[in-house]
């Protein structure tokens, strides 16, 4: 599968590395060229030598998304540090580029819930943390 990950922070870069290990074709888009270091970290070879793709660009720019391969993506993961950016680009990937599988990371549980109700797949780390903490403290 062709996996496009937008936002190579801790989460995005880890998911990207995992996807590559699993044998997928992986493309990463990030506005910060230095985020590439996170993709190299912990591996002997560079991200590109391991077969990964990396594009520097702004997520909202269609040209950048196209350069990163959104048109042939089977999976699109929106994991920038902005909830609203993730929600908007995930909808663009879904509605404009017909990507079959789209997931957006949304830190705010309220927005994550509402957009999920509208049919957009969201992952909310805050909600997960709340549940885990509740379990750890009160179970």
């Amino acid at each position, binding site marked *: 599968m062709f996996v496009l990950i937008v936002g190579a922070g801790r989460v995005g870069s880890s998911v990207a590395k995992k996807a590559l290990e699993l044998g997928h074709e992986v493309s990463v888009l990030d506005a910060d060229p230095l985020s590439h270091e996170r993709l190299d970290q912990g591996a002997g070879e560079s991200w590109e030598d391991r077969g990964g793709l990396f594009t520097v660009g702004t997520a*909202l720019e269609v040209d950048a998304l196209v350069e990163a391969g959104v048109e042939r993506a089977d999976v699109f993961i929106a994991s920038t540090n902005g909830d*609203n*950016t993730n929600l*908007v680009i995930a909808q*663009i990937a879904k509605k404009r580029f017909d990507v079959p599988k789209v997931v957006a990371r949304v830190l*705010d549980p309220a*927005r994550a819930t*509402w957009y999920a109700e*509208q049919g957009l797949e969201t992952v909310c780390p805050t909600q997960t943390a709340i549940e885990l903490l509740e379990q750890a403290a009160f179970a």
Partner: protein
Amino acid sequence: MYVIICGAGKVGWNLARELLAKDQEVTLIESERRRYLTVEQELEHAVQYGDATELWILERAGIQRADLVIAVTGDDEDNILICQVAKEKYLCQRIVARVNNPRNLPHFKLLGIQPAVSATDLILRLIEHEVPQYGLVHLLALEEERLEIIELEVADGAPAAGKRVGEVTLPEGSLIISVLPKGGGGIVPKADTVIAAGDEVLLILDPGLEPAITAQFSPNGRG
């Protein structure tokens, strides 16, 4: 009318000021603490502190009863999100969004955020008006209705010059709605109103008919 304005920058603050002066009920929402405190000096309880992309902030501002939500923050993704939830979650009838980067305009359209206003586009429109290319100015595009209104100057020697409105050969889907003689004072024309060179004419038309129409008003019928 109850209006919620998101973003107290120059645009948002002045909009709030104008609407308050027109006796409308306004809540302005600003997420930056220092900016909020500055604006609060003047607008007092009409401005609230918080991130307008958070649903509870919108609810606290009373979005359920808002007649109009205006998103004019400096971030296009925020403006899109605010308008999307205003429209689809809180069923607000009217929204207006500001487009900061005109390249993002297709995103607003894709997600049904209309009208989306871009300062760059407005200025371009003005430039077109002041420095018309081929004498044609787009005055208004009614995108939902798929109609536009344009303004044209009638050139010397144009096929339409000297003709009556009823005699001008226009493509199907277009209509002359006003003739503005050189000396000023527009008229709503009748079929026998004569168009002179130097007049300006306003037409309403289906988008895409401009070349055929321009031909009638340019010298020697060239488009």
